[in-house]
Structures are given as structure tokens and as C-alpha cells.
């Protein structure tokens, strides 16, 4: 009897006690995360799991009785669908154009504002306005400014005699894409500016001062000191922006409706159109899964960089 008791204290009860005290220490934490965890599971992860199954089915709202598991058929169809390739190209052009240009503009504005002078706060607040205005409102305002009937931009261009007849900004494929990129940059560069300002404020002044004392030109200081130091932070923000731009439904949907002739339909909008307008729920979901897989690569990169910046400690 005594022997077995002794043995137990040696092995499992010790473990159990440790386990118990671990749980007692952390029960509170588990209660605290419970509500948010429930929302995450119910609103994101459970629907996501059922949605994944949808991507491997033939499911059309028009003929629901034909719904069946069809393996990878949707993906084979997607691979041979030239619309998908066109949409993917559109997505890439949008992401590269919008994120790249808003990075440059955000960097420029951040650098211009990284010095205290009068009106600095005013400029900063004004530049943040696009970030606050409801996207539907701003896209509709842009749509009107780009309008070829009475839009401000064409009126100004014609008054200045730069063009004779109105430029059809939203109904010519190339110009529509250009408009999307400009409006996208407009709505995204304020975020980049704030990121750049935040990164700049964490650089000690002594660094650039001593570089200046050593006779470095402004450009040299930026090129070899400031820029390398802000790069890691801005890369993380850029990745996040790329993901958001790729998933942005509102911009093309409201500004151009994806037209003319699907020239401004990115993959995410095509997926929406398949699922909600053509009622091909299975096929539409499989396109969303394709874009999600592409984003997972960027996402993995994002999480890696976050971890390297030590957010967990």
C-alpha cells in the first residue's frame, strides 16, 4: 500500500499537481479570452470551414438539385477560364500600382511632415481625411469627378484646352484601370504616411544629426540611415496593405462595376459575381479559395515579420 502511494507521488500526482496549479493560474485568462474566441469561431472560423467545403462542390442556385461533390473540377475549370487569368492580372496590376504608389506618396508626405513647424498638425489632419470618409461616399464622389458628362476633371481639362472632347475616364479599359489606381492610392496613402511617421519618430535624432555633422548630404542621410531604419516597419504595413487591396471589393464594385468589359474586375470581384450574380456558389467560392491561398503566402510573411519585431513580448 504504502509503496504504491509512494510511487504515485513520484510520477503522476506530481504531474497532476503541476497541471492543476497551471490551470488555476491560467483559468482566469481562459475565461477572459472566451467571449472573443466564441465570436471568432462562430463568425469567422466555422463559416470558413463550411465555406471551404463549398469550393469542392458543384452548387448552383439555379439548379440546386444538382448539387454534388465534384473534387477539383472547379479548379480545373478555373484554370481554363480566361476570365480568371484576366482577373488575376487585374488584381496584380491593382495591388502593385496602388500599394507601390501609395507607399511612395506616403513616404514623401511622412518625410515632409517629420519636422516640427507651424501648420504641421493641420496638414497631417487634412491628409488623413481620405481614411475617415466612408468609402462609398468617396468612391461616388470620385465617380462623379471622373464623369464624362459634367465631371470636374473633364471640365477643367477642357477649359484649359488640353483636350477638345471629354476624356472617357471610366469607360475606356486602360483609363478605367488608371482611375482605379489613382482612387486607390488616394484612399490608401494616408495610412502609409502614418506608418512612416511612426517609424521615423522611433529613430533617435542623434543619428541623423551626427551624420549631418560628418557632412552627409540630406539624401545620403536618408539613403543610408533613415530609410534602412524605417524599412522593416513599412514593409509590414505594405504587406498588410497588399492583402487589403487584393481583397478590396468596394473600390472596383462602386467606381467602375468591374467594367468596361471586365477590364477592372479583380479576382475578388469575379468571385463575387460568380457566386451572387450568376448564382454559381460552388465555383465562386472556389475562386475565393484561390485568392485566399494566394493571400496566405503574403499572410505567412506578415506573421513572420511581426514575430521578428517581437510583438509577442
Amino acid at each position, binding site marked *: 500500500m504504502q509503496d504504491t502511494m509512494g510511487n504515485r507521488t513520484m510520477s503522476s500526482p506530481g504531474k497532476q499537481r503541476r497541471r492543476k496549479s497551471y490551470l488555476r493560474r491560467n483559468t482566469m485568462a481562459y475565461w477572459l479570452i472566451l*467571449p472573443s474566441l466564441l465570436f*471568432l469561431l462562430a463568425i469567422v472560423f466555422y463559416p470558413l470551414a463550411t465555406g471551404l467545403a463549398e469550393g469542392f462542390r458543384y452548387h448552383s442556385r439555379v439548379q440546386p438539385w444538382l448539387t454534388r461533390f465534384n473534387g477539383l473540377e472547379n479548379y480545373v475549370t478555373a484554370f481554363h477560364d480566361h476570365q480568371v487569368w484576366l482577373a488575376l492580372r487585374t488584381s496584380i496590376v491593382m495591388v502593385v500600382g496602388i500599394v507601390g504608389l501609395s507607399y511612395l506618396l506616403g513616404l514623401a508626405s511622412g518625410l515632409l511632415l517629420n519636422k516640427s513647424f507651424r501648420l504641421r498638425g493641420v*496638414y497631417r489632419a487634412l491628409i488623413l481625411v481620405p481614411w475617415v470618409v466612408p468609402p462609398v461616399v468617396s468612391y461616388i464622389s470620385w465617380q462623379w469627378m471622373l464623369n464624362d458628362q459634367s465631371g470636374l476633371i473633364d471640365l477643367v481639362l477642357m477649359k484649359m484646352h488640353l483636350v477638345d472632347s471629354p476624356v472617357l475616364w471610366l469607360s475606356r479599359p486602360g483609363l478605367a484601370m488608371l482611375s482605379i489606381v489613382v482612387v486607390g492610392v488616394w484612399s490608401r496613402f494616408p495610412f502609409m504616411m502614418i506608418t512612416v511617421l511612426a517609424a521615423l519618430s522611433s529613430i533617435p535624432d542623434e543619428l541623423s544629426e551626427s551624420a549631418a555633422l560628418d557632412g552627409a548630404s540630406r539624401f545620403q542621410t536618408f539613403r543610408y540611415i533613415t530609410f534602412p531604419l524605417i524599412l522593416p516597419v513599412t514593409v509590414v504595413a505594405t504587406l498588410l496593405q497588399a492583402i487589403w487591396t487584393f481583397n478590396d471589393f468596394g473600390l472596383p464594385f462602386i467606381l467602375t462595376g468591374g467594367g468596361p468589359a471586365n477590364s477592372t474586375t479583380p479576382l475578388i470581384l469575379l468571385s463575387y459575381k460568380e457566386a451572387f450574380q450568376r448564382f454559381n456558389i460552388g465555383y465562386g467560392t472556389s475562386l475565393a479559395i484561390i485568392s485566399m491561398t494566394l493571400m496566405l503566402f503574403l499572410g505567412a510573411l506578415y506573421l513572420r515579420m511581426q514575430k521578428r519585431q517581437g510583438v509577442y513580448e
Partner: protein
Amino acid sequence: MSKDIAIDKQRTGLSRSSQQMAQDRARSATGAQRRLWARAESAGRHLALCLIALFAIGPLLWAISSAFKPDSEIMTGLSIIPSRPTLEHFSIVLRDSQFGTWFKNSMLVAVGTTVLAIAIGSFGGYAMSRWKFRGRGLYGNALLVVQMFPGVMLAIPLYLLLTRYHLIDTLWALLVTYLTFALAFSVWMLKGYFDGIPREMEEAALIDGAGRLRILWSIILPLARPGIVSVAVFAFLLSWNEFFFAYVFIASNNNFTLSLGMYSFIQQFSTQWGNIMAAGTLATLPVLVFFFLLQRALTRGMMAGATKG
């Protein structure tokens, strides 16, 4: 490490040329010239910033200005200040649409999202900041990953789920969805602020026998006020500005939010831009006021968020 080395290398490279530059400067730059140069630089800075700021607020300014212009002036007028300002468009919008209801709906959902995102988010943030529980990394990553899922992917299954619980086409559908997306950043942001609060006070209170929730409420939250302000602004904006889920989930006019109402205006008023812009102005006003009141706190919050993620 490597950064330091790079800087050092650069510094030695620079000091070689610094002598030349010092000579150059001594030869040419007199005090007056330098002052002139500084003034030119300041002017250039203001000019560039003015252009950028104009680009940023131009569309909104033009929208507001058109909202006050009579129809005859809208199609041809290039002036930003209406020559004969009128409130006609505003009264049409308020009379011929359910603008008031939409406004109320948007406000209900946004305020609900904001309050719950702070309450539930501060629980999660507190747990992440003070305990090293198993699964903490997973929980944190799950929150971050939520921001990367395409809405379209979630919309279909979520639509079916909400239908099953009779929440589709109600404001509750929007509330739970926006809340979940708001939690994705509010937990992280609040964790960041809580991390900065020293633990000594908490420990003293624990010894005095205060419970954790009480400590969170009466010690931690008051100290994290700037963080709460920025979470509030983010959550409010997310909810107020969201379009896609509202567009998929809400069908009846009574339950429209302002974003949906605005979108329906393009159909209803097609090319009556004056009316559309008046509605847009009204829809933007609350967020604009909110933003300018809390601008300082918000910028600080965004900057902290930008470096922390």
C-alpha cells in the same frame, strides 16, 4: 547589429568627403544665403504639402460644394464656392428617402460595435498581456489572420448561418460581424497599451484581495484611456464605413445602413448629383466631427498601432 555596422561604414565614407564639403561651404555660403536657402526650403515644403493635402481633401470639398449648388450650376460651374447656395438637395434627401432611419441604423450598429469591442477586447487584451497561458500564440495569430480573409469567402457561409438563426436582414447580423472584425485589432491594440502599465499597482491590489475584473475595471482601464480612445475610433469607423457585408446581408430598406443607402441613391437619383452629394455630406459629417475631435489621440493610436501591428 548589421544596421550599426552599415551606419559606421557609411560614416567613415562620409567623413572623407566632409572636409571638401566644409571647404565648399566656407567658400560660398554666407549667412544671408543660408537664410534664403532655409526660406526657400520651407516654401517648397509648404507647397508640396499643400498639393498633397489638396489631393487628399479635394474630392470631399467638391462633394460638399456641389451639395449646396442648385442644379443649373452643378453641371457647368467650376467654382468651389456656390454662387447661389441652396439647401434644396438636403431637403429632398431628407424628404424623399429614409435617410433618418439609415442614420439611426448606422449609429446603433456603430455604437454597439464600439462598446462591445472595447469591453470584450479589453478582456482578451488583458489575458494576453498578463498571462502566458497555453494557446496564447494561437489565439493571437487567429486574431491577426482574420484581417486577411477575403470577405467574399466568408459572406456565403455566414449568410447561410445567419439565415438559420433568423438574423439575416437584421442589424444584429451586422453587429456580430463588425464586432468580430473589430476584436481582431482591439485585442492587439489594448494588449499593447496594457503592456505599458506597470504591474506593481495590480499586485498591491491583488494582495488587498481585489479580483482581477475589478482590477481591470478600476486600475487598468483608466490608465489605458488613450488606447481605448483609438480603439473606439477604429471600431466606430469600421462599422460606420463598412459596405460589403451590409450589401450582402441586408435587403430591406428599413434596415439599410448609410453606406447601403448611399449606394441605393446612385440607382434612385442616377445623375442627380446634387442630391447624392448632399446625402454623402450628411453621411460623412459624424465621422468627420468625431475624427477632428479625437484627431490627436487617434494619430497617436495609429502610430502606436503601426509600429506594433
